[in-house]
């Protein structure tokens, strides 16, 4: 049973929550407005997410040691296992908290990485790799005994790749970082120990652990322009969850990313890797890491439903990854949001998932329109009909949970929480040889105090009745008696009226028709806009469904215009405000 939030007043047992106002879909017109005087974001310091930190660490060590040895070093220090998880319940970007666990673990990782780099087999390679980046003042480096010029070159090159910006030098900036780093070499008895200390400091620096834009130029009032490096860094982390690569760093050094032409060139450099943000966002938005584990595997109904499929974490991961690849494929192939909800292309390669889909051949390693494996006509289409959105983890499909996921998470429609209900209110309905799963759930929820809310919920799940507990397509389902013996088969109905849940005078025949309807709703456009905005800016809660926001207006309009999916993500950065920061000196 779901627990009430701490401190929430409890309703007496058995008393139903007040049914919500019947949902009204947002007006077809763009609900967001743009005020020309809207200030740029504050961009206050925020800790890198786990994914960003690990990517940045991997990129830096790879630069010095190559991919294979870098992977070995990160395994040795257990970088992935050490980092605390992000707080659940919101987007990973919203957890900017830096706890003592972060301090301890990032120190342990930096310590371990520095020690690995200082090992004889790695030290010379690592130092030489960074010194090879120039400048000419360190023409013949000897890693064993670095000259002052080579120490400087090493510091500058290392920190530029780690932080995405040049290290500050000289007292004029008020933060002579170079002098502080030179000191490590002065204190260390050997160059090797100096390099290790510099690596530790680089990996623990605010510029590495945090999104912290301090390379700014005042424009007017509190508005400051980001440097080219700051823009490049922001672009890279926004779209690739990683620091800028060499090409982008080169463009930041040679161009002026405040100028539209150079900015577009920079955008073009990160576009090929934009799939990272598409998949990470969809993964978090749809809670794909929270797919239910498979329980009750030996339940008599489970044994019939699974029918040879091994239910394990590998299958769960395959379900998740198939949806992530769906999003990435639509983005990379220039598709639209509607394609996400309607494409019949399968990405299943895992034997268990292929079994669920009744698919004979695995999806090719590289899916194209020509090579794609497609579902049989009329059986399955886009996102809503994939196993990841359907699997219940138990012996029976749960139309209520399917509907709530669609209604609350995908469409951002108000979804009432059940109150302090009598025992077993939320348990699955008992077996009945004469009723389908849909009918059993309908019977259970069509009584008071349940009916008021469930009329707004159930039809969305009932439309997906052609998919069983694992997401397999079905036109009939097994009928079980009270002790879970199979006693026959019952035809499945997936017809559903959408007037209750969506306010549309429309009947859909199945999940495919439901998907087509959902893909065109302004509720979906608004919901994805609000969620993407929350993800990109690390908001603790979804922004309002309407109101002033130039960014959200562009995002929504991109979807309303049927533009390619990548335009949705690009529309977050196209405004000049993306290249500025509002610096508030007081809370």
């Amino acid at each position, binding site marked *: *049973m779901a*627990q009430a939030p701490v401190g929430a007043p409890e309703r007496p047992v058995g008393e139903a929550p007040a049914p919500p106002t019947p949902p009204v879909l947002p007006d077809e017109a763009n609900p967001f407005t743009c005020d020309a005087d809207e200030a740029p974001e*504050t961009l*206050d*310091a925020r*800790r890198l997410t786990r994914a960003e930190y690990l990517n940045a660490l991997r990129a830096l060590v790879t630069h010095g040691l190559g991919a294979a040895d870098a992977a070995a070093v990160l395994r040795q220090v*257990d970088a992935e296992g050490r980092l*605390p*998880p*992000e707080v*659940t*319940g919101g987007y990973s970007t919203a*957890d900017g*908290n*830096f*706890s*003592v*666990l*972060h301090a*301890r*673990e990032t*120190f*342990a990782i930096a*310590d*371990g990485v*520095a020690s690995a780099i200082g090992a004889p087999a790695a030290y010379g390679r690592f130092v030489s790799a960074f010194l090879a980046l120039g400048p000419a003042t360190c023409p013949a480096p000897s890693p064993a005994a670095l000259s002052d010029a080579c120490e400087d070159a090493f510091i500058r090159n290392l920190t530029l790749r780690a932080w995405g910006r040049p290290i500050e030098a000289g007292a004029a*900036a*008020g*933060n002579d*970082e170079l002098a*502080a780093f030179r*000191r*490590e070499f002065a204190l260390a008895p050997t160059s090797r*120990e100096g390099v290790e*200390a510099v690596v*530790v*400091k680089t990996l*623990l*620096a*605010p510029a590495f*652990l*945090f999104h*912290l*834009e*301090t390379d700014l130029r005042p424009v007017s009032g509190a508005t400051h322009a980001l440097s080219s490096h700051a823009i490049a860094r922001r672009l890279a982390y926004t779209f690739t969850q990683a620091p800028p690569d060499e090409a982008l760093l080169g463009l930041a050094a040679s161009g002026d990313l405040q100028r539209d032409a150079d900015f577009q060139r920079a955008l073009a450099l990160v576009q090929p890797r934009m799939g990272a943000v598409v998949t990470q966002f969809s993964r978090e938005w749809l*809670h794909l*890491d*929270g*797919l*239910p*584990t498979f*329980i*009750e595997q030996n*339940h008599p109904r489970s044994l019939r439903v699974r029918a040879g499929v091994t239910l394990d974490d590998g299958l769960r991961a395959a379900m998740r990854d198939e949806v992530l690849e769906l999003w990435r494929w639509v983005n990379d192939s220039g598709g639209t949001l509607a394609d996400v909800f309607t494409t019949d292309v399968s990405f299943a390669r895992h034997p268990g998932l292929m079994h669920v889909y009744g698919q004979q051949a695995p999806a090719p390693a590289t899916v194209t329109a020509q090579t794609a494996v497609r579902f049989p006509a009329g059986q399955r289409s886009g996102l809503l009909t994939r196993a990841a959105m359907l699997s219940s*983890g138990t012996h029976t499909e749960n139309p209520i949970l399917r509907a709530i996921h669609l209604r609350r998470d995908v469409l951002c429609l108000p979804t009432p929480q059940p109150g302090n209900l009598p*025992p077993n209110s939320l348990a699955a309905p008992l077996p009945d040889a004469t009723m389908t799963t849909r009918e059993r759930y309908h019977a259970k929820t069509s009584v008071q105090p349940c009916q008021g809310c469930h009329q707004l919920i159930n039809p969305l799940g009932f439309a997906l009745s052609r998919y069983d507990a694992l997401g397999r397509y079905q036109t009939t389902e097994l009928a079980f008696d009270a002790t879970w013996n199979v006693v026959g088969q019952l035809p499945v109905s997936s017809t559903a009226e959408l007037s209750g849940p969506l306010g549309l005078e429309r009947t859909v025949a199945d999940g495919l028709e439901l998907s087509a309807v959902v893909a065109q709703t302004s509720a979906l456009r608004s919901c994805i806009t609000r969620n993407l905005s929350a993800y990109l800016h690390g908001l603790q809660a979804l922004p309002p469904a309407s109101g002033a926001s130039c960014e959200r207006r562009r995002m929504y309009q991109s979807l309303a215009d049927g533009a390619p999916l990548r335009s949705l993500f690009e529309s977050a950065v196209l405004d000049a405000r993306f290249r500025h920061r509002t*610096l*508030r*000196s007081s*809370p």
Partner: protein
Amino acid sequence: MTYDRLSRRMFLRGTAGAWLSIPLLESLVPAEARAQGTPVRRFISIITPYDMGHHAAWLPNTNSPITNLAPPAQVLTPGNGHHAIRYQPLRDFVPTSTSPLSLVAGAHFNPWLSSMTIMRSLNHSVRYGHGAAWVLGGIQADAPERGALATIETADVVLNKHRGFNPAGLPHIFCGNAGYGPDTYSYVSSGGPAGYASCLGEDLTALYNRLFSNGALPEGGSTTSLHPRHDVLSRVQEDYRRVRNSRFTSAADKRTLDNALDQFRDAQASLTRVTTSSCAHRTLGRSGQVWQAASQAAVGQALADLVAAAIMCDAARVFTIGAPMLGGTLNGQVDQHEEVSHVPFSTFGGRPSWQLTAERKTAIARTFVAPLLQRLASATDPSNGRSYLYNSLVYFTAESGIAHGYGSHPVMLFGNAGGSLGSGHYIDYANRAAGTFAGGDGFSEVVGSPTFGNNWWGASYNRLLVTVLQAMGLQPQDYENHALNAQLYNRTDLGPNNRNLSSLGGFGYAMPRDLSGENTSSWGFNHYLRPGLEGQDLRQFRNPLPMPPA
């Protein structure tokens, strides 16, 4: 400070005194170094009363089944007919260093999450209590239901008497008073072996004198050393201060950087380690009574000091701290046991009784358990160069999970028993296919709250004791007694899992109640005993608990 890498390497082989006792960084120690030295193991059980009524207060953040948690739990499939087990890293439940892990733990154990294990759904097969004896596998001395059953030694006693575990025959240290001390052990009352009959009671001076031979035990020195990059971390903090005070930082940036600075400072503090190659005890405080430990931090810390010093001096290897640590009444007004613990939904001073009992446990966690863990984690055991906490097993628990019921005994473990056990997880031994039960005490049924009882059929509690004994190096032949559970052999009325058993093995009673006189059609048998037995899979009784990889 400079650092000679060779000297660290030498220390890792156990040949020199240096730092490196930090559990946090132990995975960085080369595997070949970790294997050096045979660990000296210790077992410390801290058994408290007064938590009957709400085992969930011990569980991480929630009373929901672990499968409802997000991110989802991982699944361990032991095979051999054992049901699947769900587990999840404890860190998942503690997003910040100040986040409470559970109602009982608060945030007091957060520094040692990687060394900690919380278990759920370890069930007894009969309603039980009071006292420490039940918890360690025995029968209460005056329990009327024990009938004709033999009295047995508890796990702590078996351990202390085992000469592989305790070759020098060091004394078994009891702390406790009436009702929660050794007087609850049947074999003591019935004339157990010498050395166990006298209870140390509650006086810290008496405890000191027993441990350290009235102060005559020789002392050795201790040294303090720093992590080799301790000074680099100081300069990292300077970097944060400089950025914080630079020109283009907002007020929010400054707050973020100030916070990071604080966290690095705290992290750095934990990098200072005391390396103990011998013991120090003469300056320890020893005034106070054990029962004051929960309410007076100084007494709690003194008790922790005494136990930790005894371990470092190798004055004892088994500690059974079964004292109430609280007075028998709440604020001197009501009987804490009968009028608070037994009525968890009543209120006292306007607050639910179950919250008050949990808070009493939190006080013990704060004033005694956490200081003890701190001392054990921050000192190096010269036997193998690992921390004393790593080499030990600290078991923090209560006498029952829910008002004498058999469901979900609270289990918090700390340490790794010298590497025998993994740690860092919340493990739910619930057997999801078998479902839930009310608690077996006739209590939660009355309350009718599904979130309050929420007991799942899971694994036999006694398997925890098997796990402990094996982790400490004992073999089944050291503790198994075929005759002990003979009353359960060759029966057909104890559930489908337990038909026609010819032996059980394992440790202790599977049913610590004499069934010979039971009318198997009686209400009591069917209400209390049969469900408790049917819910167990006694075929697994001899096996240690499956645990996730470290």
